[in-house]
């Protein structure tokens, strides 16, 4: 089964209402990325998670500013199904082991942002602004070995372009790893989703703006995917 996920409910009106609406339309999963990491914001996030969990009948992931086992404990207790960690995993890779040991790998998503620099896929931090020394494929492998349950891979080269997902890199990740890979960055039309499942071998595809601005209707997308022979949940 290939998943269609929706990300980023940051500045989109009432996130709880919006989340329920996307679930109703057939999204398979939702991802909330709140980039704020202050103590005050974290409390707000926990409350938001609780409100979403009360309404939502599909799984959802929460990410942004998570840097400790305690942070994750609060989010899961409030009803999140998974958490997504990114920079904190690079700074402290052992956090992946700790989270996986304590909560199970199924709720640990490691988000990786990378850019292709002179043929080398390089991991970036802070929303793709800060380059690291890490190679995407080596880091992804390490992340899997440390116990991540899924990888959310965003190609900074494709994000925002609406020219399609980074299918070559995705296909390589999918062949080298044995955990699900979520494709992110580049969705512009329905064919891009078909391509990322077929060519990119992605297990799920994630998009925000094409759904948010109704350039693609989820029901239409899923019908087309099914016609293309990709197994999807039709609601």
């Amino acid at each position, binding site marked *: *089964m290939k*998943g269609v996920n929706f990300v980023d409910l940051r500045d989109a009106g009432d996130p709880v209402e919006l989340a329920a609406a996307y*679930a109703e339309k057939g999204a*398979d*999963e939702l991802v909330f990325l709140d980039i704020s990491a202050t103590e005050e914001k974290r409390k707000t996030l926990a409350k938001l998670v*609780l409100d979403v*969990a*009360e*309404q939502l*009948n*599909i*799984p959802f992931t929460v990410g942004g500013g998570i840097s400790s086992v305690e942070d994750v404990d609060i989010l*899961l*207790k*409030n*009803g*999140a*199904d998974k958490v997504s960690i990114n920079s904190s995993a690079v700074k402290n890779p052992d956090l992946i082991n700790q989270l996986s040991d304590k*909560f*199970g*790998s*199924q*709720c640990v998503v490691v988000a990786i942002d990378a850019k292709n620099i002179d043929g080398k896929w390089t991991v970036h931090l802070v929303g793709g602004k800060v380059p690291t020394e890490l190679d995407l494929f080596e880091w992804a492998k390490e992340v899997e070995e440390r116990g991540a*349950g*899924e990888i959310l891979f965003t190609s900074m080269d494709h994000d925002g372009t609406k020219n399609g997902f980074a299918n070559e890199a995705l296909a390589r990740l999918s062949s080298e790893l*044995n*955990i*699900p890979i979520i494709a992110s960055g580049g969705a512009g039309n329905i064919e891009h989703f078909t391509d990322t499942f077929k060519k990119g071998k992605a*297990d*799920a595809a994630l998009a925000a703006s094409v759904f948010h601005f109704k350039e693609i209707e989820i029901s239409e997308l899923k019908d087309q995917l099914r016609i293309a022979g990709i197994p999807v*949940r039709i*609601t």
Partner: protein
Amino acid sequence: MKIVIIDYGAGNIQSIKFAIKRLGYEAVLSSNEDEIRQADKVIFPGVGEAGSAMKMLRSTGLDKVIPTLKQPVLGICLGMQLMCDHSEEGDTQGLGIFNAEVKRFDNSVKVPQIGWNQITNLETHLFDNVQNEEYVYLVHSYYVSECIDEIARTEYGVNYSTALQRDNFYGVQFHPEKSSKTGEQILKNFLKLDLRN
């Protein structure tokens, strides 16, 4: 109707509570034997590792309580796995309610299975108004090997028993609380179960 969710410190039970609330019922969390025995319906959840979950059940005495319950009991995910004879996870002895073995997916598929998959070969009132091949949400690395208590099947590399029933005991590998309208229907069916019928 009194609905009790067994609370033994394993996993996130908030979502189940909310799902029941969306159906118009109120569930209470409890680890108290009397309260569990007096409930009309009992839900036995579980997320985590089989060995440590069994240890928690034993330390609270719930391992003796659960198999002797008389009302409808629904095990969810690890809860269902713990109701089986034995699990490969940590070589754990289960509650022995279902005659079934819990095994690990081999590496021909991605492990854990995280996501939506179909249920087929549906039996019993638990699946009233649910169509064959509807999708449910699953998150697991271990599965129940096909067995005589099977009331639904899923394929992921192998065919496995994705739902079980014996007497008043039911178990589902998937998360009805996260399985959209299909899951709501199944939860509703469970809450409507009447053993006198």
